[in-house]
């Protein structure tokens, strides 16, 4: 009960702070950076369920993100489906693809998921580049309509940002609720010892498939919202590099911490924008900060924050 109240409270505060942020950061540019932060955070939170909690490595989350972006773009712009329907179909489609990908992969134990998702990412990348009629090829696809719901318009960036905050808060809330349940314990048990997890009655194949599909769904939601925000998609945004960047967000934020993934995503999205000022040594600084982060915060930003809170709090007797 206490954990649930704390989760609910923290999600509410988080949403309110984000909703209020544009009051201080009035510039349009800031809002666009915040939008990217939210999108990355959605994917990172899902990837963290898979990587941080269940210990399964996916190198193809960029592909899920991109597949949903393209699918929704094509369905709405080319096929003329209502946007909400295109989005729904795209997300469902990606969930289905992940489920199918998971069937053979999780029958085998070991690091087959990393390989399968790597291959999957490459294939998706090739299709995006080569199926020119459908996707517009390497130069991308234009004319995707801005996201809208029946009776609701998100034409202004600020209102789009508010929508994203609500979706992100929902994704964080869903993740926290799952983590603090027997399903979350099952995920961590699979990570800790597959044999022991099985001996405790956990169907490890099913558990992995479930979390894989769920994390792909979160990536798909973000991908759809990305396409209908930029109104343009190109294959280069969904390559292997983005998959790796997502993993760095999760690791830097703190494995097995929902809030850590959010922090990692925000940090890694904002950091390059700050470093723009240092033109020549931008990449160098970026690398140095990452290395320092890994060295001094072995359990990520989340672990660092916990340590800091522990130092600030007066020592209490053990309860």
């Amino acid at each position: 009960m206490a954990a649930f109240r704390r989760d609910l409270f923290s999600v509410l505060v988080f949403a309110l702070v984000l909703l209020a942020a544009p009051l201080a950061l009035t510039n349009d540019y800031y809002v666009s950076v915040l939008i990217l932060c939210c999108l990355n955070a959605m994917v990172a939170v899902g990837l963290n369920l898979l990587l941080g909690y269940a210990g399964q490595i996916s190198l193809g989350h960029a592909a899920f993100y991109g597949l949903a972006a393209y699918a929704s773009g094509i369905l709405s712009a080319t096929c003329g489906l209502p946007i909400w329907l295109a989005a729904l179909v795209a997300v469902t489609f990606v969930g289905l693809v992940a489920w199918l990908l998971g069937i053979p992969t999780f029958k085998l134990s070991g690091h087959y998921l990393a390989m399968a998702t790597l291959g999957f990412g490459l294939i998706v990348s090739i299709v995006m580049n080569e199926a020119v009629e459908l996707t517009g090829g390497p130069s991308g696809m234009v004319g995707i309509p801005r996201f809208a719901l029946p009776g609701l318009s998100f034409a202004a960036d600020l209102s789009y940002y508010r929508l994203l905050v609500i979706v992100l808060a929902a994704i964080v809330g869903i993740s926290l609720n799952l983590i603090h349940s027997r399903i979350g314990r099952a995920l961590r048990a699979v990570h800790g010892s597959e044999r022991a997890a099985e001996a405790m009655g956990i169907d490890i194949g099913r558990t992995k498939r479930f979390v894989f599909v769920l994390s792909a769904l979160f990536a798909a939601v973000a991908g759809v919202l990305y396409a209908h925000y930029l109104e343009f998609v190109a294959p280069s945004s969904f390559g292997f590099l983005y998959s790796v960047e997502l993993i760095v967000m999760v690791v830097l934020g703190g494995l097995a911490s929902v809030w850590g993934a959010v922090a990692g995503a925000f940090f890694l999205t904002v950091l390059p924008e700050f470093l723009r000022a240092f033109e020549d040594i931008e990449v160098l600084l970026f690398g140095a900060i990452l290395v320092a982060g890994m060295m001094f915060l072995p359990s990520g930003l989340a672990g660092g924050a916990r340590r800091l809170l522990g130092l600030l709090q007066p020592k209490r007797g053990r309860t």
Partner: protein
Amino acid sequence: MSTVLSVRGLSVRFGGLMALDGVDFGVEEGTITSLIGPNGAGKTTLFNAVSGFVPASGAIELSGRDLTCLAPHARSRAGVVRTFQNLEIFANMSCLENVMTGAGRLSGYGVLAALFKTPRFWREERAAVARAEEALAFVGLAEHAATPAGDLAFGNQRLLELARALAARPTLLLLDETAAGLNMRETKALGGLITRIRDELGISVALVEHDMDLVMGISDHITVLTFGQVLARGRPREIQQNPEVIRAYLGEDE
């Protein structure tokens, strides 16, 4: 008295090696049945076969129910819960969470119940916490509930694994060398604990163990395995006096 576990004609082959060769093994309800034998005799393999971790031929029944076609997790859900010779705790979780994973065998709420925090969710979570705390207290780890499992001393990690299995309230508990690596005092306490598992919790226990004092002290029945075959079975007294057993196994230590 009825039979909880009945294994007949069990064979396990690893390439050219017959790790188990037509083994019969049984555990009567409410007893502690020990499985002893020299290193490499096939004791762990028998547990692996019963819990579904290695493919085997032969019959395996739990209270008359055929287990052979069930996956490991389904056998656990059916009531066969085991511990591991090489500790398999969830080092990334607290002790309470470790044990709650065991208790999870008895809860069945799904994803939606977890998402929407339904009354069923709260009821089953409360029950799981209560069962886990009870199991931790039973093995004497009550004050370690919040400790990360990886931080426990080795002996306590063994007890944690035991508590995790107990929280699942198994019909049959398979203990694979739980006393390995424990000192004499800890081993003695463990013997008392296993006896209480049988007497107070009414759980039937199959025990693989090398410590003969422990085995002879608490077992109701003993089966001796050598080279994948049953050499002898009987009460502790009978096994101690069996000349073949003394030659094949006990002689080693004496």
